[in-house]
């Protein structure tokens, strides 16, 4: 059976910016194992000649012409922002002082 360690899950959670309790980390590490096992069953089949896909429909080359359509007004664009200033989205400090 596949398994993911508690630390693997903690790292993934960190990369995804999801805060998790210790209990959740432990619970998910066993659940991830089950998920990986389920997906791994695909590998038991003979897949030679089958192209990997990332889309449920066999579509290719869906594109639009290079034409401008009206955008949102800045008011509408900013309407759901938790904070704004001078028609811009305001976000908390990104980096601290230079080391």
């Amino acid at each position, binding site marked *: 059976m596949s398994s993911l360690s508690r630390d693997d899950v903690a790292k993934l959670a960190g990369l995804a910016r999801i805060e998790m309790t210790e209990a959740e980390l432990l619970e998910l590490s066993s659940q991830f194992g089950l998920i990986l096992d389920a997906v791994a069953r695909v590998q038991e089949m003979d897949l030679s000649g089958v192209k990997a896909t990332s889309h449920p429909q066999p579509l290719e080359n869906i594109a639009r012409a290079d034409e401008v359509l009206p955008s949102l007004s800045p008011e509408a664009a900013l309407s759901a922002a938790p904070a704004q200033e001078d028609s811009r989205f305001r976000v908390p400090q990104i980096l601290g*002082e230079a080391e």
Partner: protein
Amino acid sequence: MALPTYDEVIAKWDPVLGLEVHVELNTKSKMFCSCATEFGAAPNTQTCPVCLALPGALPVVNKKAIESTILIGLALNCKIAPYSRFARKNYFYPDMPKNFQISQYDEPICFDGYVDVEIETDEGLKQFRIEVERVHMEEDTGKSLHVGGATGRIHGADYSLLDYNRAGIPLVEIVTKIVPGTGKYAPEVAKAYVAELRDILRGLKVSDVKMEQGSLRCDANVSLKPIGSDVLGTRSETKNVNSLRSVERAIRGEMIRHAELLNEGKKVKQETRHFQEDTGLTRSGRSKEQAEDYRYFPDPDLVPVTPATIWIEELRATLPERPSLRRKRIKEEWNVPDKEMAAMINADVLDIVEATVLLGADPTKARTWWLGEISRIANDQNIAITDLAITPKDVAELVALVASGELTDKLARQVVEGVIAGEGTPSEVVAQRGIKVVNDDGALMAAIEKVCAEQAETAEKVRGGHLPAAGALIGAVMKETKGQADAARVRELLLGHLGQAN
């Protein structure tokens, strides 16, 4: 230990380069939505649910962006992938509303190309081949404004403000393979490569390629290895290199910084550094606590791009003349000496000079005006020569006016000033300023007689055979005629008048 000099660095170390160039395409609309891409628009006026990443929005790729990228690939001698996909590059940063960037990962649309550049070396003109690993499509990020702190820089800022107008503008990334074997010419080769790319892209008309506006940006990877060694050193990646001159300076600076560390037995840290335009040095960027882990995966919202061979060949047939060939052709057709050709390329005036020549101007005259007087004014005003109010049409007209004898070179310089000051075309400036060559011998004779009467003593010296004294009189006559006379004719008439005809 003192900082090693550049000569000391290259005596011991061999630089290895890797260059990543980002090009903003000049499509009218964004990569995956129909928002406008106008530079300098008011903040957040060019956004929509797709580029703001509002829930449920679906991206659809811009066909023109794919076409432009294929053209770039073809111009860089790349192969075009019959099948390529978009992938999500996952990371969190406020300038990217989706928390992932749509890019391409293991299936770039163009790959395996090269660009040849020529630079002047101790052994004469030498060609270097820069191999291109890949050309792929992605999207630009928004613009941040850092508020608070002393410098407006991200470090020490209290908070930041985001404008997402730029988020989602089509971006093409051109990545070289590692470039070995450039030795002491590494900084110049890198500069020549970026310049060549810029010229190629400009010729393709797929981007504004304005480094100062960020539509062409270069990240320079540099590492050093001991000369003769096969083992690559640790590289640093310098971002924020926004001019051709900076490419050269940044690489030279990093070579010196690496050599200093290595000479002292220290290690080069693999990190991102930011180029400082004012000092020419780099400073450490965000230190990465954890190794980058972008968890790329194919974007399920977008379908594969499979350009038909016939379309690729149609695009190939539209490729313009390669810049290197064009330079060669121009040099031969116009009979330009090496040094002058280099000066024109360096001053970036080839396009405007060629446009001037196509309007009928003599190539040498056209070149002299653009490289001389007009370049000087552009430098004085510290603006790009193409942003001055004088056009190839104006210069062609000016050259014609001088050729027909309506202007002297000296008067033509006044006309150039007038055109640049916005007073109109050369003919309009001539008319408005009342500039004209005094060809009328009668008017000249009157001025000569007047000056000789005023400076009788000097005139007498000339009459007595002391010719150097004539200079002062000629000067006075020129002043009298407000510089509009032909000095050679004045001299001729004056000497005749004083019995010294030669």
